């Protein structure tokens, strides 16, 4: 108890005693004073002992019983309100009129020639499409007998949905308790239906259910709070195994970050306890406040879902498969981090000794670039942990330096001021006065925003690009042979990696390194869109709709070059991003084009787009020395073909 609180209580007690005893005879007054003061001392000692007892309790001694956010709101109204605005809350929900964002008003979406009908009956939503696991082996634009009308169809009731920010995916439940992701999702950003084959990064496929997953198996752990997977044996011979999956709450709610709350609610129903805890000033040990934890433990709460993890089998109950991790505990007690998918495979097979050697990411790694930098979302923790600023969790930097689960910004959950250089000035104050001197860009230009060089858009997921969380000096050597586009060339799309190397050498004295021939003189964006794999192409394609890149690179040449590359692109997601870039530059002149339409339809619409853009886009070759342009301002198709022949195109898919 603080001295202030104690003095206040004492003053109140003295006042009451004084008033009471004024009207009493002296003998009774003395008795009253003694009894009153005794009560004050006893009360103080009792509150102190309760506070000491609570403070001595360890967080992992907390009862693991959960409550829901409906209970938390009764006391924590403002924190509940700020969480309520987040996409954390709406990550997984039951399908209702309020939660469904897709157009279910008898809409039809056709992919691979198979029409999917989206309908509703009152509060119930249905997706009628190709039956479970039906695979269309024959693309519908081939004249070899494929008949979409003969595809077996089924009407799936929509039970639950995942996502509310970029995409909304729909799940149907079978009688074994399994929730299947249905093959058509709603792209909230574009307000249109898309097939999941085009929503996730992967090459064109004719497998209608290629991206089918069972929610209970994987998605459930990060998209909900306190999960018990509860696999069940088959109900009958030949039937698939089922689930009785339980979650404390759908979506990411209070207890995901603050730990189970039942004990906290129970003890804090006593007001004296609340005031004693507050007066003690050491926090409430019955609940986790990430801000009061050491940096490493606080960041592990985020890493539980924003880190690449493999469960440690010895920590898990094989029967219930309940996630043993509670916020505030040591995450490494129940999971191991992996830093490449090769390491993930070894850990999953129990080969810890080999995994300990940290095999580097393979060229088709779906989570990490060749230099170890994460290339997709939900691995942000590893990005930060690889940063020199992080100092292995022993420094000042943590997830909570920039983010808050209760921030006003629901998009990226950034704290106020952290969208600007103020975020970095928290530690690097010295750059405030000499920004332009350091960046060699105007102080008020995108080139002087710390994020653009040190946390560039090198991460792909959800049909867009995101900032890398590896805070890094942009060295050219980290982008040679690793697949990772260079920060400078994600803005200066018209310049080569050789040009970047020269500039960095001039400005910062960085010694030049060896570069492949094509990287020396040809615009890095064009080289990578022709030559590199789908992961790199996606990130580079995403940069074309970034206003800062358009300003730095010129707006007249992508309309000439990109349609050629769009016609040769085999990844629907990359086609979407290239077309998004064209739309952002040329509006309706770049329409119509559907990245998921049949190849014949795409070719027809692309030809029309190319013709329209050819009329307006005649870039001057002298202005763009690194671009493959003819003297007349057209595209040097032979040069592009030359680059396309060198394409390294392993089938890659990003595990978003």
């Amino acid at each position, binding site marked *: 108890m603080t001295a202030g609180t104690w003095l206040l209580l004492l003053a109140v007690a003295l006042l*009451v005693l004084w008033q009471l005893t004024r*009207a009493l005879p002296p003998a009774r007054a003395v008795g009253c004073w003694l009894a009153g003061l005794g009560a004050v001392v006893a009360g103080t000692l009792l509150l102190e002992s309760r506070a000491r007892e609570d403070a001595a309790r360890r967080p992992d001694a907390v009862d693991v019983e959960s409550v829901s956010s409906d209970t938390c709101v009764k*006391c924590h109204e403002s924190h509940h309100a700020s969480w309520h605005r987040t996409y954390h809350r709406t990550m997984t929900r039951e399908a209702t009129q309020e939660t469904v964002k897709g157009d279910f008003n008898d809409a039809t979406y056709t992919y691979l020639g198979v029409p999917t009908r989206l309908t509703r009956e009152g509060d119930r939503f249905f997706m009628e499409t190709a039956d479970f696991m039906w695979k269309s082996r024959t693309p519908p634009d081939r004249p070899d007998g494929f008949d979409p009308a003969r595809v077996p169809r089924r009407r799936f009731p929509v039970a639950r949905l995942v996502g509310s920010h970029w995409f909304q995916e729909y799940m149907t439940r079978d009688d074994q308790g399994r929730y299947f992701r249905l093959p058509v999702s709603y792209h909230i950003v574009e307000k249109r239906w898309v097939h999941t084959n085009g929503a996730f990064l992967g090459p064109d496929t004719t497998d209608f259910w290629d991206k089918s997953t069972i929610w209970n198996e994987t998605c459930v752990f990060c998209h909900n709070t306190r999960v018990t997977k509860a696999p069940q044996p088959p109900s009958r011979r030949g039937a698939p195994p089922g689930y009785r999956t339980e979650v404390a709450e759908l979506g990411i709610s209070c207890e995901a970050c603050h730990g189970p709350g039942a004990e906290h609610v129970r003890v804090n129903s006593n007001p004296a306890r*609340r005031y004693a805890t507050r007066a003690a000033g050491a926090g409430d040990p019955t609940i986790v406040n990430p801000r009061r934890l050491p940096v490493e433990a606080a960041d592990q709460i985020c890493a539980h879902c924003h880190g690449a993890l493999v469960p440690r089998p010895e920590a898990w109950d094989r029967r219930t498969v309940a996630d043993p991790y509670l916020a505030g505990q040591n995450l490494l007690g129940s999971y191991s981090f992996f830093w490449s998918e090769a390491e993930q495979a070894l850990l999953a097979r129990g080969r810890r000794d080999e995994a300990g050697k940290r095999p580097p990411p393979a060229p088709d790694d779906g989570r990490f670039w060749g230099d170890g930098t994460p290339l997709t979302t939900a691995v942000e923790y590893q990005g930060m942990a690889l940063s020199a600023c992080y100092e292995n969790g022993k420094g000042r930097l943590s997830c909570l330096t920039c983010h808050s689960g209760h921030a006003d910004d629901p998009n990226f959950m950034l704290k106020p001021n952290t969208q600007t250089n103020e975020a970095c000035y928290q530690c690097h104050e010295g750059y405030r006065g000499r920004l332009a001197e350091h960046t060699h860009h105007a102080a008020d230009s995108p080139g002087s925003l710390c994020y653009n060089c040190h946390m560039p858009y090198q991460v792909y997921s959800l049909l867009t690009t995101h900032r890398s969380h590896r805070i890094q000096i942009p060295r050219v050597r980290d982008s040679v042979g690793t697949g990772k586009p260079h920060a400078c060339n994600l803005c200066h799309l018209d310049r080569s990696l050789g040009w970047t190397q020269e500039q960095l050498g001039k400005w910062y004295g960085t010694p030049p390194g060896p570069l492949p021939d094509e990287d020396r003189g040809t615009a890095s964006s064009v080289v990578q869109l022709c030559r590199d794999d789908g992961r790199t192409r996606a990130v580079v394609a995403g940069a074309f709709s970034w206003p800062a890149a358009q300003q730095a690179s010129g707006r007249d040449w992508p309309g000439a070059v990109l349609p050629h590359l769009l016609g040769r692109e085999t990844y629907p997601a990359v086609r979407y991003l290239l077309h998004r870039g064209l739309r952002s530059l040329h509006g309706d002149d770049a329409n119509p084009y559907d990245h998921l339409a049949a190849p014949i339809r795409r070719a027809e619409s692309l030809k029309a787009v190319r013709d329209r853009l050819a009329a307006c886009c005649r870039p001057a070759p002298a202005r763009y020395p690194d671009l493959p342009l003819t003297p007349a301002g057209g595209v040097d198709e032979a040069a592009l073909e030359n680059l396309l022949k060198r394409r390294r195109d392993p089938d890659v898919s990003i595990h978003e």
Partner: protein
Amino acid sequence: MSDDLTTLRARLARRHHLVGWLGLLIFLTLGATLEALHGFKAGFYLDSDRKLRREMWTLAHAHGTLLALVNVAFAAGLPSLGRWTTSRLRVASFFLIDAAVLMPLGFFLGGVGPGETDPSAGVLLVPAGALLLFVAVGLTVESALRSRE
């Protein structure tokens, strides 16, 4: 009725009269201030995370005004109504004035630097004041009942 009690009644009536009107002045001023905070959209009073402060200060205004009126009413009836003894009248009078100070003050202090879940510790004055008010009202009721005998 003894002269002492008559004198005491008159003296305490003047005191309650003064306390009541003074209280009304203070708490009407507080009410006008709260209105002004609404008018000027003062963030420290109106922001969504200041709900507890708003509630506490509104309660301070309401309780202060009401208890001031109770004091005025007590002063008006004291010279002629109720059957009192000197000691009971003193206790009732002291407690009524204390309650009129402690309860609104407790609510007001409760709204200064409140936590998210609870008002600040100043709110502990409220139950103390409520206890005193309860005793004062009880004694007044008793005096009123005895005056019928």
